[in-house]
C-alpha cells in the first residue's frame, strides 16, 4: 500500500532536482557576460547581392518584422560571439567599416561604442538581461538599413 507522504516526497525530490539543475546552469564566473553581436542588413530586395549573406533565422526575422521598420527582408552579414568579464572591454569588427567596442559595466549592463571608418560616432549604455536584446540601426545606401543586434547567449 502507498504511504500517505510518498507523493510529498516525490514532489520534494523534483523541486530539489530543479533547484540543483538551476544552480548548475548559473554562470561559472559571476558578472561575466556571454554575448553575441550580429550585423544585419535590411532591404526590400528578395536576395542580397552578396552570396555570403544569408537570411536571418525565422525567430529573429519575426522579431524584426514586429518593429516599426519598413524593410521586408533581413540578411545576416556577420555574427560574433564573445565573453566579457566585468569591467572588461572588447573591440569587435563586424565588417570592414563597422566596428563596435563593448564594455561590461556589471549587473548585466553594457556600454557600446560604434565606430565608422575608425571614427567614434555613438555610445549607448543599456541593461542587457538574458531575455533582452539591443538593436542599433541606421540608414544605408539605396534605401536600405544596417542593424547591429547585441544580446546575451547561453
Amino acid at each position, binding site marked *: 500500500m502507498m504511504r500517505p*507522504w510518498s507523493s*510529498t*516526497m516525490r*514532489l*520534494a*525530490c523534483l*523541486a*530539489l532536482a*530543479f*533547484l540543483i539543475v538551476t544552480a548548475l546552469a548559473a554562470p561559472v564566473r559571476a558578472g561575466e557576460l556571454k554575448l553575441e553581436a550580429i*550585423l544585419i*542588413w535590411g532591404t526590400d530586395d528578395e536576395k542580397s547581392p*552578396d552570396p555570403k549573406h544569408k537570411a536571418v533565422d525565422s525567430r529573429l526575422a519575426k*522579431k524584426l518584422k*514586429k*518593429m*516599426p521598420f519598413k524593410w521586408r527582408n533581413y540578411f545576416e*552579414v556577420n555574427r560574433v560571439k564573445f565573453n566579457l568579464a566585468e569591467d572588461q572591454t572588447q573591440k569587435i569588427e*563586424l*565588417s*570592414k*567599416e*563597422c566596428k563596435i567596442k563593448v564594455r561590461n559595466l556589471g549587473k548585466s549592463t553594457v556600454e557600446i561604442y*560604434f565606430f*565608422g*571608418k575608425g*571614427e*567614434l*560616432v*555613438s*555610445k*549607448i*549604455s*543599456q*541593461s542587457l*538581461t538574458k*531575455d*533582452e*536584446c*539591443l*538593436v*542599433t*540601426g*541606421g*540608414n*544605408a*545606401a*539605396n*534605401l536600405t538599413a*544596417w542593424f547591429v543586434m547585441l544580446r546575451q547567449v547561453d
Partner: protein
Amino acid sequence: MNQDFQLKLQAYLDGELTERDTREVEAVLAGDPEARALLTELRNTTDALADFETDLKLPETRDFFWSKIQRQIQRQDTLAERPTPVPFWRRLLIPTGAFAVLVLVGWIGFKSFGPASDTEAAVVETFLTDAGAMTYRDEVEGMTVVWLSYPAENEFAEFE
C-alpha cells in the same frame, strides 16, 4: 423439550438460576418424565466428571490475576496503535521539500507576475554634428531599438 429448556436444566443443576426460574423448572420437572430423565443424566455426568477437575489455586487474588491480564491487553493495544518510527532523514526531507516547493512557486510567480522588466532606458550619445538618435522599446519582445539618423550617404552607413 426445547434447547433453551435443556440449557436452563443444566443451569438449574449448577445452581445458577434465580428463585423464580428454579420454581418454573421444578414445575416442569414434576410433570415431565423426559425432563426428569435428562436431569438425572446430567447429574450423573457431572458427578462422573467432578473427580477429574483439578483444584487449581491461584498464587494471587482473583482480582489481581484478572487485572494483570487486562494490563497486558492494554499494553499490546498501545503497541499496535503506535506508528512506525520515521527515520531522521525522512523527517528532515519533508520540511526541506516543502521549503523548496515554496521557493520554486515563489520564483515562478515572480517570473510570471512580477515586474515585466527592470531594463532601464538606453542612454544614447552621438558624436557627429548632423546625427540624431531615437529610441524605441518593445516590452513584449524584450527589445530596445536605437535608431541613429545618420544621412545614408554618411561613411558609417557604408557598413561593408
